[in-house]
């Protein structure tokens, strides 16, 4: 139901006072599909373009190239409020995502008021209902964000996102600012809501354990490109791309019998303004081959997704 076709987003950034702006491809030719009721996990390092992608989906940023389709219709062409009813965000930072000057009631009911849904009585009723759903007592309606804990705020943010009964929720690292004890509450809530309302999630996280727990499909992003996409099982059981491997290895399970794994990744994260030639990942790749630094790899379909790596490129060609 949600589809990205060759979407790119280029920012122009200034680095020092003295340098002229340079283009930065935050999102580079990304194509993705999310089916109804699916949870697509999006993982990748900081700065690889996950949030930018989320913003494009939310209509907060216009892609420099490519299209975003919702139910086959192009996103820009649909009217703004229509879009807002269908796609809603949950952000990472529960402190900055709620306006500190507004009461919880104002925050949650804002979408209703903006889109003139119902009268004030029915709006209040809706707010009460949604508060109940996200597990907050109705009395918090008249309090302010500063009076709440991080977990409670995140629940408010979820309530605001859900009050318009959207179909798709974009969760941009919704738990990474929370303590583990609270994180599990929110994860449970998100899972319950999905079951109950049949929601579709794009779930962005850099915590692979969480992604594995919640998602059906996973897309791995590196420097603006999706380097691998697969079902959860597919990825976690037999990942293909070396970067996905490294990611998986870095997951530290609380197992006192194991030591710290060696990811075989190089030390330096590349500069996104001047990405490495060929395969962007090659400088850090343990399995880099000569052509990796020269030729950008092709996207190769796999049984439950695709991968972008010369390893499979050549496997494919040699097989053919």
């Amino acid at each position, binding site marked *: 139901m949600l589809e990205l076709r060759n979407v790119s987003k280029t920012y122009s950034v200034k680095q020092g006072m003295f340098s002229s702006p340079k283009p930065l491809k935050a999102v580079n030719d990304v194509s993705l599909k999310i089916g109804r009721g699916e949870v697509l996990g999006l993982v990748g390092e900081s700065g690889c373009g996950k949030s930018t992608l989320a913003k494009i989906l939310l209509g907060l940023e216009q892609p420099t190239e490519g299209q975003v389709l919702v139910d086959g219709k192009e996103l820009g062409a649909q009217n703004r409020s229509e879009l807002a009813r269908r796609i809603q965000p949950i952000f990472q930072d529960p402190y900055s995502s709620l306006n500190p000057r507004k009461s919880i009631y104002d925050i949650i009911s804002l979408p209703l008021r903006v889109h003139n849904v119902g009268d004030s009585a029915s709006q209040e009723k809706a707010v009460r209902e949604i508060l109940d759903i996200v597990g907050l007592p109705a009395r*918090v309606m008249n309090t302010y964000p500063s*009076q*709440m804990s991080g977990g409670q705020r995140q629940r408010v943010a979820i309530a605001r996102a859900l009050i318009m009964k959207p179909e798709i929720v974009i969760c941009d690292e919704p738990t990474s600012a929370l303590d583990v004890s609270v994180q599990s509450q929110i994860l449970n809530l998100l899972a319950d809501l999905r079951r109950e309302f049949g929601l579709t999630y794009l779930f962005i996280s850099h915590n692979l354990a969480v992604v594995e727990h919640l998602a059906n499909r996973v897309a791995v992003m590196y420097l603006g490109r999706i380097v691998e996409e697969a079902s959860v099982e597919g990825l976690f059981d037999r990942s293909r791309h070396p970067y996905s491997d490294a990611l998986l290895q870095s997951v530290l399970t609380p197992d006192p019998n194991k030591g710290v794994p060696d990811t075989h990744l190089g030390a330096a994260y590349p500069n996104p303004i001047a990405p490495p030639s060929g395969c962007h990942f090659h400088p850090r790749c343990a399995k880099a081959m000569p052509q990796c630094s020269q030729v950008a790899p092709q996207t190769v379909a796999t049984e439950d997704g695709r991968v972008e790596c010369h390893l499979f490129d050549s496997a494919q060609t040699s097989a053919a």
Partner: protein
Amino acid sequence: MTQTADPLLQDIIGPTPGQLLRKRIFGHQGLLIGGVVLALLVIVALFAPYIAPHDPYAQSLLARMEPPVFLGGTWEHPLGTDHLGRDYLSRLIYGARVSLMIGVVAALISGLIGTAMGVAAGYFGGRVDAVVTFLINVRLAMPVVLVALAVVAIFGGSLTVVILVLGLLLWDRFAVVMRSSTLQVRGREYVAAARAIGCSNTRIVMSEIMPNIVNNLIVVVTLEMAHAVLLEAALSFLGLGVQPPTPSWGLMVSEGKQMMLFEPWLVLIPGFVLFALVLAINLLGDGLRDVTAPENRN
């Protein structure tokens, strides 16, 4: 739960921001002092006709420069009389009107201009921002006193002209502060959330951004009020401000200056009330900044 009386549970839902603010306000000495002094001066200004013992314009050439009571004068003129025999206290009281009026109206005008420019620049960025930044630069590069003097010299020094000149000149700080505050708030996720909800720009600016920068605005308003009051006094002192017989404190200092060596109180008294007013406004502004600063908010 059976443990509702447990002390650990008590402030799980803390005081509202309003309560916190009130608490901080009443815990801030400077703010209270400034606020009380300013309130007193405002009352004095509002009720000048009922408080002033004499007509501030009534001259008596035979009773010129009578000293205040504490320097051997009479209670008829508690603070003495000026060089035309007008009651000094009454003129001071009416002078409060002039200073406050100039401070408030000039700050209002410049506040409107500066806030509009700053918020537009911060919110829309890009070309709007470039233009506003340029205008701010131009404005900052113009020497205020000099330009204000020139304008007053050209258009004559009526109260209206002085207010307008100051109002049209002092918007720079508003623009700068509002621009950076808006920039800061614009990047917050609740603004992104509001956009994702489908709010219009106007609504975002008015109900998501403004409430969060209005505290900075108030602080700048006080600062610019003080600035305007001081500038008016300086212009009047240089003879290019408010015109006589309007009792402006700067003008009074300027008039008393001639006799400063022999009757220093003529200068000291109006200078002191001017100092007190500006001090009160500044204390209030500083206090407001302290109690509303984001780092104190949570």
